């Protein structure tokens, strides 16, 4: 290890060069995202199978969701991806840590807004109206059994997605602390970049969830 007299910050002993470390980290995150795709993939596959089996029920179920909020949240998330990308760009071009933190916090605010909208205007309303299978289900006989199935999918998929958002917020918190402690520079910002990949991935999952859950049935 004598070859590396001056270790840059964040350099781990098992690597020979900084490039090797950065490439390993990035590849690791991409592999992780592949596992995430398979993880969500099990649900998407099941969704597609049941949608083809019970199309009318799924359309009926979809009409219970409020597109307005789904659309708002879609915009919120896409905007948060922009602010995340700007945080990385700011670090890359060697701007002050205050600017990095600004974009990170803005990303966090947007992410938290997404969850708040979901909780307050969607899930809470669903709870009151008795649309949550297994928790509060008030069926006046207007629904086919398949609607309950659709709502299962809706809550499992958006719930799992929201869980990933919460994890993302945790990661962002760590990044803010690391930035405040001057861990990053224009030479070393790999954790920002890798976390960004995760954040964008969670965003993209929503881009698929929104049309599959809210927009089927051609009501617009």
């Amino acid at each position, binding site marked *: *290890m004598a070859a590396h007299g001056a270790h840059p910050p964040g350099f*781990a*002993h*098992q*690597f*020979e060069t900084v490039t*090797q470390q950065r*490439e*390993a980290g990035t*590849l*690791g995150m991409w*592999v*992780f995202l*592949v*596992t*995430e795709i*398979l*993880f*969500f*993939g*099990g*649900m998407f*596959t*099941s969704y597609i*199978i*049941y949608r083809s*089996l*019970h199309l009318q*029920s799924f359309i009926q179920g979809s009409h219970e969701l409020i597109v307005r909020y789904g659309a708002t949240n879609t915009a919120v998330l896409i905007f948060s991806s922009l602010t995340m990308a700007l945080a990385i760009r700011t670090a890359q071009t060697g701007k002050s840590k205050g600017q990095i933190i600004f974009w990170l916090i803005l990303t966090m605010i947007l992410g938290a807004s997404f969850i708040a909208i979901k909780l307050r205007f969607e899930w809470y309303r669903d709870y009151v109206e008795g649309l949550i*299978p*297994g*928790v509060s*289900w008030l069926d006046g006989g207007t629904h086919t*059994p*398949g609607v*309950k*199935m659709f709502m*299962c*999918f809706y809550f*499992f998929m958006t719930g799992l997605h929201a869980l990933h958002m919460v994890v993302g917020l945790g990661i962002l918190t760590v990044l803010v602390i690391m930035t405040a402690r001057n861990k990053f520079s224009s030479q070393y910002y790999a954790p920002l970049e890798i976390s960004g990949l995760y954040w964008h991935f969670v965003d993209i999952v929503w881009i698929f969830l929104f049309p599959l859950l809210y927009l089927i049935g051609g009501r617009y």
Partner: protein
Amino acid sequence: MSTATADLHDAPAEPGVNYLNASYGIRSWLLTFDHKRIGLLYLASITIMFVVGGVAAMLMRIHLIEPQGALFEPETYNKMFSTHGIIMVFFFLVPSIPATLGNFLIPLMIGARDVAFPKLNLMSWYIFITGAALALYATLSGGVDTGWTFYPPYSSHYSATNVTIVALGVFVAGFSSILTGLNFIVTIHKMRAPGMTWFRLPLFIWAMYATSLIFVLGTPVIAITLFLLGLERVLHVGIFDPAVGGDPLLFQHLFWFYSHPAVYIMILPGMGVVSELITAFSRKKIFGYSFVAFSSLSIAVISFIVWGHHMFVTGQSIYAGLVFSVLSFLVAIPSAVKVFNWTATLYRGSISYEAPMLYALGFIGLFTIGGLTGLFLASLATDVHLNGTYFIVAHFHYIMVGGAVMAYLGGIHYWWPKISGRMYPDLWARISAAIIFLGFNLTFFPQFMLGYLGMPRRYAVYPAEFQVLNVMSSAGASILGIGYVIPLVYLIWSMRYGPVAGPNPWKAKGLEWTIPSPPPTENFEEIPIVTEDAYNYPVAEAHKYPDAPGVARV
């Protein structure tokens, strides 16, 4: 590669500072980031799980000595085979070779100081023991009776046992597999020493790479599937629930989408180990390196498109069955490539029969039987007759125990001098290899016959006419049990009292044999520069048979 180490072997000195004695105390183990120590943590944990699963198996075999059942109520028997299956599959076989030998050897074999993400590596062990603890807790506090397959609607709506906790345990342990696979993939891609090209990698690494691909691509699917099952159990409604239009068959599809590839998670590492053992003890280059390497990858790929052969009789479309049957036959091709190439490597090699080699040879024979009987089950018509019988039990035990466990033990014996720095008593090791081979065949060969005659699996009682074969099987199981206890005793003994092994007791090739045993914490004083192919055994040793395949021409 260094050659100076060969001289050290003649007078092995007491090991100096190494990964085992670099620091002491329980904290230094529980907070270690060293891949070698993490490998040993896994070794200890899965040995405990193996004992638990083995005791369950032993109790089952004792129960089945009598047609009416000698020990348990049928409900208890159901819990026994479920415990045995779940513990052995998810908490022993899946992590066995990858998490122990893989963790220990991958950085050593590719010339790296550690895996790419050491902290993640330790985390995956903690995740594993959390899952294992949940499964053990569920077992001890009432058990689970669904079998290891957790089929709904029985598991989701009817079983009154601890299904949720066990499913949670398997779910949690799955993330350990995912992180291990991720770590290995990145390590093999990015951490290879200069000159260690892909086609100079030991075949064990190729096998681990293929295994890691399955970890990464398959495990998330079983995780989400068991998650959905757990939710359905808790909420009493879910996507496998026929009351709301759900289809339990979908669970089976998702389950086997992982669990069939998982079979290859269990056997591929074994194949990698055997490639190492066969070359080391016939002192020859592997015959057809690239074929063996690519057969690992093609097994991994094909494994993802054959899951339907578990569902020929469960209501899947007959046309789907036809396709899955044909695809399943494809797996035989890369598997046979491996067996043929090992055999060709043996041909005119200078073979010696040290204990690891006995395990490797046992593996080839038993794997071949297990593999060929798999073709019976991949054929639609014969599967209808054999499905759900002891024939299936015998078939997959030939692969899982005769294959995977034999290779695991062979690998442990081969690399034990590297792991511990000590030799074990060779005679005892050979005796135990022979006992395991005999006990194994006596246990499981009668089960082929039982299954062919129509004895269904998972029943606590059976017609009296099947008793002779069942008693044979139970007798074999007790011999097998003894065969497993002996290595446990002498390996532990050797850690303290065994003779010092030296860096390369087998005079084998490979970077792991160029460094001291046990290796120092940082593995390599300086990162080696690799200039030769794997298994580059001296030509002179095979010179008396110049025409043998794999012998380099001079």
